[in-house]
Each structure stands twice: as structure tokens, then as C-alpha cells.
């Protein structure tokens, strides 16, 4: 409470006024005291001086005329002034006359003035006047008393003022106390004041404010009630939606999970996926796709309405599930599947003026444990194998493969992150020059234990997991960097996806320019891709050759390509498929094919490279066929560094 008082408005007002007034009074007091005291003193001093100045000429002339007796009269007249304590006239330092007054005040001041001969500057004597300080002291005393009285009066006024201000502000304090107990549910009684001042205005405003607050609170309450109802409703809807698919109205994947958890006995699961559903969306539009899904769900429901054991769910997108609460026999299960297949084949979805037909792939499992995953695996495998149905069993070993694939993906990711994807370089020999003239850059993954992993183990996974482009970029970057200052050509393998990827092409061009290897780099592309994607490959070759790079067709002879296609591609090298070279020793047909290829290539002034030369016999054959360049383990294995 004490603290509150110190912070109260009345206290602050009063203390401010008090402090300011004290400062002013003290200032005035000291200033005036100093000034006035001096003034009073000076006044008395001037009086004394005036007296002396006045009598000096008279005394001077009396002395001048030698009428010293007259001086006595003058002095006696003077002594009537009670403030003059004594006056002495000295002539030539000798006392002529001295007169004392009646009063005997202790404090005095002495005025001395020289007496000069009239009309001359010659000193003829001195007046010594002792003037009493009594007046001065009385004056200052009176003044001080007056100031003290003023101070006391001021203090009294302050006290009265503070009481008055406190009284003025009392209503405010009362209101503050009242307001402490305010609650939007309990109306306060604010008594109006019969005055026309600020406090009355505040009270009146508070009263109005209270009314508004109450009104607002009431409205808020209504709104809150409404919102609570809506929230409850929405919560219920959301709860329902949690387990219900919005589009089809079927129970959703979450519901299936729950069902599977609840059912303890053996059961079965069939997942069906609408084939190429994306194309329906793309061709007919999203609305058509939604329409098909809704209708499909209805038709399925209709079809299954008599099946008490089968529960239909929509899992996602274009996938549905049929859960067999009680595990049926295999025969029944298959009968259901086949019935469904036939039924779905008959289904026609009429959307606007189009008739849409769908095909479905099924994946199923009759094993309870991990049934969703198993059914899903079976479905994916069925799609891969282009079958309409596959039932999951352990012999598929799919899970293990999946697990391995997952592990490889992580391995590749780690290798990329830790820069363990590196190029190894295999030399390509020029037969005539009998020296290495180029190197093929081959991707390797260095395992955590330091072992080198060949690409056949991880490239397919990389492609499936979309890590392949990263590997290509690493190879481009590292190969270009490695051969930047080396006086030899080098070749890098590119896939059709690489050539179709604008970002990859840009990256390749940037790297070539960065390391200035335009005239050193050779891009090897597979024959089959060159055939299947002729336009894209051709464009890529055109652009890349403009930079000064060379092109090599890899694995030539492995596909069923037309020589005509190859003619149109502006290539520089032709690498004969390894499978043909490997068999040169034993297979006459391979020899004929290789001879034909060499002949063809020479006519086109292409440099031929024989891969997979693994022993001397094959090497000699290759030499005899007049193949310019050879590559293979016989001549050099891929290694991390080269020795130029």
C-alpha cells in the first residue's frame, strides 16, 4: 500500500509542486539574501558615506577658516543621528575633535574621508565616522524572518493543497478499486458524479465502456458457442474423413490399417491398380479421372455388395484394396480375382461423349504378416512382369531384393556424399603406333573398406533411384578435371537420358569449357540408343561437335541397327561390341561380322576400336583385321591413375 501511495497521482503532483517550490524558494532566498544583504549593507554604507561627504565641505571650510569651534556644532548636530556612534576630526594626523553618540552598538563600520582645502586638492584633515550596523542587522533579520514566515506559510499551503488534491482525486481511487473487481459477467455500479469535471467525464466514459464491454462479451459468447458447435461438427467430420476417402466415400488406407490390426485371424488382401490411369487424367482431364474413380468405386461396391467377407477400400490415387476378413481358400480367392477381372473388363465409363475403358493389375497375399507390403510387392512385380495378377510368395524373394536395392541406394548416396564415386581409366592402344592414345573413363564406387565396386552392381539401381544423373555429373567433372592438363584424349559414356536432359547437356558444355578439354573429350553413346532416339541423339551430336568434341558409338554390332542410321550420325569412332571381339577366337560368324563392320567403318573414315581384347590371340586377330585401336584387359586394366 505504501508503494502504491508513492506512485499515486496525488503524491506525484504534490511532490512535484513541493520540490519545485522549495527549489524556487531556496533559490530566491539565497539569491535575495545575498543580493539584499549586500544591498542593505551598501545602503547603510552609502548613508554613512553621504553623511561624511555632506559634512566634509563644512568641516573643511571651518578648518580652512580656522573656525574649529564651529566644527563642534556641526558634529553635535550630526550626533542626533542615532546611527552615528562617533565622529572624529583629525587635522594633520592630530585629533582635533571627537564626539561620541549615546548608543553603543557593537557592530559598526568605519568611514574615513580626507578633508581637502576648499577649492584645492590639498589634504588638511581626516574625518573618521563610526557608523552603526544596527540598521543593517535589523533589516536582514527582518528579511530573514519574512522569508522564514513565507516558507512556513507555503508549507501550510502545500499541506492544504495536498489534502485538497487528494480529495479531488479520491473519486479516481474509488473507481480504481471498483474496477479491480471488474468481470465481463458482473456489472459494476458506477455512480455518476454531479460535477462537470474530468473525473466525472471519466466515470461517464467508464460507464459507457462497461456497457459496450458487456454487449461485446455477450456477442462473443454467442460467437464462441457457435464456433464451438462448428468445431465439434468439423472435428466429427474430420474424424470421419480420417478414415474415409473424400472422393469415393470408401474407407481409406488408414481404415484398412486399423482393420488389419483389429482382425486377429488369418485373412487375405488384394490390391488392384488401374493401369495407365495417368494417361486417362492427361487425355480426358482431371475431372474425368475423378469421375472414373468414383464410378469405379461404385461399380466395385455394387459388385461386392453380396460379399460379406470382402471389404473394399481406396488406398490412394488409382489403387484400391479388397480385404478378406476371413482367409478364403486359394480357389475361392482366385475365383474372386478372375470374377473381378472379367467384371472390370466389361466396365465402361461414359464421360461426356467419351467411353473410357480401364485395365487393372492385381497383387495379392494370403499371409497375414505384412500383408499390405506383400500385396504391394506382388502388385509391382505383376506390373513389371506385365501380368494381370501375382500372388505373393516367399519364392519371389522380392522382399530381399527390395531390401538389397534399398541398401544399394543408401550406399550410392553415401558414396556420392563422401566423394567415393571416381573414374577409373582404361587405356586404348593404337595398334600402328603401339602406344596408348586415349583412355576410357569408367565409373567405380570405392566402398568404405576401400574395395572397388564395378558399375554393373549399382548402375541399374542408380537409374531406378534417379541417382544416375548425379553419377554422370561426377564422372564428367572428375574426368575433365583429370585430363585438363594431360596431352591425351579421353572418352566418357553418356546415356540417352543424359542427352535428353537439358540440365545435363548444359552441365557437360560448362565442364568442357571450364577445363578446356573440347578437343580432348570423346562421348561414347550406345548404338541402341542412337537408333531408338535418332532425332535427339543427332541434335546432341551436332551441338557437342560444334565445341570440338568427338563422338564414339559404343557396343556397335550389339543391336539390330541399320547402317543407314549410323551413316546419318556424325560420329568419329566406332567401338565394336565386346561380345563380338571376345568370340573372334572361337566364332567364325563373329569374325565375319567384325570384318564387315571394319570395312564399313573404313569406308566412312571412322576409327574403329575393338573392346574386350583379353588375350594375345584375340589381339593378333584384331591386328590382322586392321582395326586401328584396341582396348581390353590384355592391354591394360582400368586403374585410378595413368602414367603418361
Amino acid at each position: 500500500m505504501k508503494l502504491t501511495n508513492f506512485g499515486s497521482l496525488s503524491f506525484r503532483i504534490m511532490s512535484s509542486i513541493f520540490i519545485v517550490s522549495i527549489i524556487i524558494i531556496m533559490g530566491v532566498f539565497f539569491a535575495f539574501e545575498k543580493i539584499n544583504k549586500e544591498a542593505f549593507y551598501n545602503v547603510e554604507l552609502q548613508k554613512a558615506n553621504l553623511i561624511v561627504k555632506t559634512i566634509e565641505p563644512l568641516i573643511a571650510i571651518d578648518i580652512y577658516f580656522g573656525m574649529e569651534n564651529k566644527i563642534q556644532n556641526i558634529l553635535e548636530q550630526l550626533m542626533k543621528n542615532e546611527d552615528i556612534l562617533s565622529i572624529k576630526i583629525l587635522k594633520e594626523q592630530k585629533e582635533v575633535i571627537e564626539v561620541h553618540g549615546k548608543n553603543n552598538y557593537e557592530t559598526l563600520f568605519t568611514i574615513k574621508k580626507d578633508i581637502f582645502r576648499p577649492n584645492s586638492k590639498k589634504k588638511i584633515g581626516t574625518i573618521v565616522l563610526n557608523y552603526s550596523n544596527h540598521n543593517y542587522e535589523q533589516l536582514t533579520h527582518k528579511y530573514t524572518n519574512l522569508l522564514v514566515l513565507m516558507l512556513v506559510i507555503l508549507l501550510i499551503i502545500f499541506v492544504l493543497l495536498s489534502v485538497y488534491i487528494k480529495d479531488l482525486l479520491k473519486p479516481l481511487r474509488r473507481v480504481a478499486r471498483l474496477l479491480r473487481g471488474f468481470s465481463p459477467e458482473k456489472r459494476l455500479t458506477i455512480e455518476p458524479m454531479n460535477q462537470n469535471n474530468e473525473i466525472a467525464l471519466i466515470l461517464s466514459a467508464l460507464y459507457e465502456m462497461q456497457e459496450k464491454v458487456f454487449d461485446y462479451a455477450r456477442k462473443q459468447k454467442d460467437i464462441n458457442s457457435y464456433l464451438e458447435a462448428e468445431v465439434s461438427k468439423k472435428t466429427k467430420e474430420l474424424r470421419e474423413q480420417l478414415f474415409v476417402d473424400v472422393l469415393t466415400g470408401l474407407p481409406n488406407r488408414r481404415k484398412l490399417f486399423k482393420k488389419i490390426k483389429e482382425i486377429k485371424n488369418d485373412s487375405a488382401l488384394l490390391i488392384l491398380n488401374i493401369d495407365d490411369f495417368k494417361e486417362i487424367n492427361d487425355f480426358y482431364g482431371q475431372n474425368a479421372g475423378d469421375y472414373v474413380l468414383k464410378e469405379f468405386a461404385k461399380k466395385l461396391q455394387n459388385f461386392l455388395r453380396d460379399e460379406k467377407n470382402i471389404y473394399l477400400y481406396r488406398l490412394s490415387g488409382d489403387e484400391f484394396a479388397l480385404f478378406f476378413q476371413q482367409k478364403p481358400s486359394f480357389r475361392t480367392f482366385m475365383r474372386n480375382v478372375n470374377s473381378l477381372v472379367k467384371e472390370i473388363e466389361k466396365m465402361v465409363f461414359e464421360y461426356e461423349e467419351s467411353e473410357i475403358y480401364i485395365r487393372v493389375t492385381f497383387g495379392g497375399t494370403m499371409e497375414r504378416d505384412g500383408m499390405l507390403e506383400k500385396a504391394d510387392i506382388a502388385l509391382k512385380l505383376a506390373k513389371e512382369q506385365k501380368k494381370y495378377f501375382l500372388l505373393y510368395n516367399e519364392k519371389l524373394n522380392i522382399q530381399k531384393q527390395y531390401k538389397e536395392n534399398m541398401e544399394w541406394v543408401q550406399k550410392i548416396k553415401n558414396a556420392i556424399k563422401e566423394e567415393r564415386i571416381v573414374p577409373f581409366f582404361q587405356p586404348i592402344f593404337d595398334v600402328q603406333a603401339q602406344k596408348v592414345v586415349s583412355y576410357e573413363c569408367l565409373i567405380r564406387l570405392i566402398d568404405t573398406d576401400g574395395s572397388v565396386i564395378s558399375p554393373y552392381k549399382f548402375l541399374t539401381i542408380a537409374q531406378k533411384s534417379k541417382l544416375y544423373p548425379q553419377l554422370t555429373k561426377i564422372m564428367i567433372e572428375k574426368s575433365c578435371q583429370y585430363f585438363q592438363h594431360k596431352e591425351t584424349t579421353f572418352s566418357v559414356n553418356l546415356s540417352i537420358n543424359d542427352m535428353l536432359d537439358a540440365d545435363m547437356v548444359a552441365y557437360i558444355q560448362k565442364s568442357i569449357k571450364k577445363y578446356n578439354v573440347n578437343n580432348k573429350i570423346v562421348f561414347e553413346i550406345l548404338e541402341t540408343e542412337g537408333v531408338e532416339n535418332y532425332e535427339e541423339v543427332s541434335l546432341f551430336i551436332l551441338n557437342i561437335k560444334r565445341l570440338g568434341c568427338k563422338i564414339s558409338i559404343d557396343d556397335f554390332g550389339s543391336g539390330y541397327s541399320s547402317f543407314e542410321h549410323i551413316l546419318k550420325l556424325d560420329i568419329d569412332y566406332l567401338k565394336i561390341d565386346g561380345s563380338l571381339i571376345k568370340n573372334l577366337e572361337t566364332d567364325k560368324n563373329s569374325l565375319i561380322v567384325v570384318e564387315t563392320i571394319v570395312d564399313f567403318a573404313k569406308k566412312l573414315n571412322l576409327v574403329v576400336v575393338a573392346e574386350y581384347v583379353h588375350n594375345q590371340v584375340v589381339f593378333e586377330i584384331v591386328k590382322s583385321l586392321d582395326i586401328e585401336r584396341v582396348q581390353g584387359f590384355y592391354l591394360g586394366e582400368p586403374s585410378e591413375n595413368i602414367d603418361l
Partner: protein
Amino acid sequence: MLRVFLFSILFIQLLFGYNYDNLVLKAQSSIFPKIMLLDKKVQNKLIDNKIIYTIAYDTSDYQTALHVEEYINSIFKGHFDRYPYKINLVDFSHLSPNTEASALYVLQSSTDNIKKAADIAFQKGIVSFSYDVNNLKDGLVLSLIIEKSTILYFNIKYLHVKNIDFIDSLFPMVKFIDKNSL
């Protein structure tokens, strides 16, 4: 006979010489020169850098005039303050505007002589002192008598005369008179 002769000389003296009060003469001899020095324009009245203190007398008062001269010399010893002076004794019959005088001290004489002296003093613009206070009515400026104390009389007519300017502190000392108050 001799006694008669001497007595008659004395009587003649008594008959024809004024009876001067020595005390007054001494006081006047002492004070009048001092009063003259209270004139702020005293410098204007110097003759050959001297104050010529002229004493006008009747022939019969020659001795008195000499006595006055003696008194003055004994007091002032050749200088009125810093000014050297010369006493100039002049018979009334020889007194004229050409008479040299910085100040004029007039002993007793006839009214005509007094007036003449007063006029000459006025013309010259010099202070005139009178032995007899009654002569102030005839135009002289200052006189002095001794009663209980020394009293100076000042002819009020000469309060604002052109060439005479006394210091203010003189005036409280003096009594002002005009011809009506005598």
C-alpha cells in the same frame, strides 16, 4: 602743551580716524584672503601671476591699513596658498578703475567712497570685502563680524556675478543679506 598737542592729535585721530576692532581686523585679515581663494575664477584675477590684494583706506586710516598689511603678511607670509601676493594700499582718493587689484578690502569711509569702491570692484569683477558689514548695502560683497562666533555676511546681489564663482561649500558658512536686511 605737549600733552594737549598729543591729546589733540589723538582726539583728531579719534575725531577723524575710525575706531577699528583689532580682533575683527585680524579675523578679516586671516579669513578674507582665504575666501578670495574660494573663488573658482581666482586665476583670472591674477596680475603678473600675483594676487594683488588692494586695501582701500581713508587717509586717516593709513595706519590701520598698514596694520592690516602686517597681519596679512604675518599669517600668509607672501603666498595665499600657492599664489604669491602683493598688498596694495590705496587711498580712496586715488582709487580708480585703473587701480590694480585682484581683490579689494575696504576699510571704513564715506558712503560715496564705499560706493565708488564697490563700483570699481564690480567693474573689475573682483571680490570686495568690507570691514563694516553695513557697507554691504552699498555694494560690497563680503564682510565678517565676531559675535559669539565668527559670522560671515554675503551680499546676495553678488551670488551670480559674472566673474566671481565661489565654491558651494562657502554658502552654508555665510549669512546672506541684501540692502533691505541691513
